[in-house]
């Protein structure tokens, strides 16, 4: 089975995958990369209104072949001045 590496960047920390994972084919690596995102999002408690988690899949040779991005965009819909949480 071919080996794929899954590097993760959430804007705060970049983790280069040195171990890799055997996947039966590219499609499985793709599915796996996408499946990892919600798992990681559970951790990410963004302070700001924008947050992105990026998974980049590399082949065994090191060549990047796939990327999946999960983004959280948060914004107030009123002027945001009333009923603000006390700091």
């Amino acid at each position: 089975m071919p080996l794929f590496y899954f590097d993760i960047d959430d804007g705060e920390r970049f983790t280069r995958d040195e171990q890799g994972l055997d996947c039966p084919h590219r499609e499985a690596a793709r599915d796996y990369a996408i499946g990892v995102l919600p798992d990681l999002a559970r951790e990410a408690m963004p302070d700001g209104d924008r947050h992105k988690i990026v998974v980049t899949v590399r082949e065994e040779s090191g060549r990047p072949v796939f990327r999946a991005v999960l983004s959280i965009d948060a914004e107030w819909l009123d002027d945001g001045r009333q009923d603000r949480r006390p700091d």
Partner: protein
Amino acid sequence: MSNPLILKLQHGADLTDEDRAMLESITARTREVGPREDLIREGDKPEHVRLVLEGFAFRYKMLPDGQRQITGYLVPGDFCDLHVWILGEMDHSIGTLTRCTIVEVPGETINELTARYPRIARALWWATLVEDAVTREALVGMGQRPADRQLAHFLCELLLRLQAVGRASETSYEFPVTQEDLGDTLGLSTVHVNRTLQKLRDDGLITLRGKALTIPDPDALKRFAGFNPNYLHLRRGEKKGDPRGNVFRSGA
């Protein structure tokens, strides 16, 4: 190397020399099992009660889709299936992680132990209750702790459990659990485990060289994990002349 069963059960009852001699005699006949072998499978009806004397084993369940959940680890001194001869058949499987030294104690011997040795009976009961507590704590971790604290908590727990049976030093132990195993234990993807391990490393909370795990400042890791050892019900350092030596050889 001192008998891990005795070291462990001393936390559960005030054992006498006679109790210790009895425990020594039931663990005299051992069997070696290779790594990654099933000791017993779901549905089996064991006639013996198995005990891990050396090595790591784990309890797991397989789901119909082939997914695996590891529900607990067995370290030296832990019984595999203490009460299965009451329950009838195994509702989960147990596999070895490393090469293990196993003892098989006939069910009748356990019956005799519990009938004639009240302190041993108490200690076995204690061991079962502590295992429940460990499972409960894992459930808390999976449900409520973020991955980094959940993993840190697990590493703190293993440190204390291994120290209790003289298989860890103050700051390090042999950690044969792979990232895949950890994922199946903590309910995380392997990639997430890899990232979380790296975070703990980057933050200086752990170092991992091969299978040698070092926790340079155990109190710091415990604080980070929010680890309270109460659920392990260990009575460390209360006994005089406790032969719990440092037998872990780092770099071995």
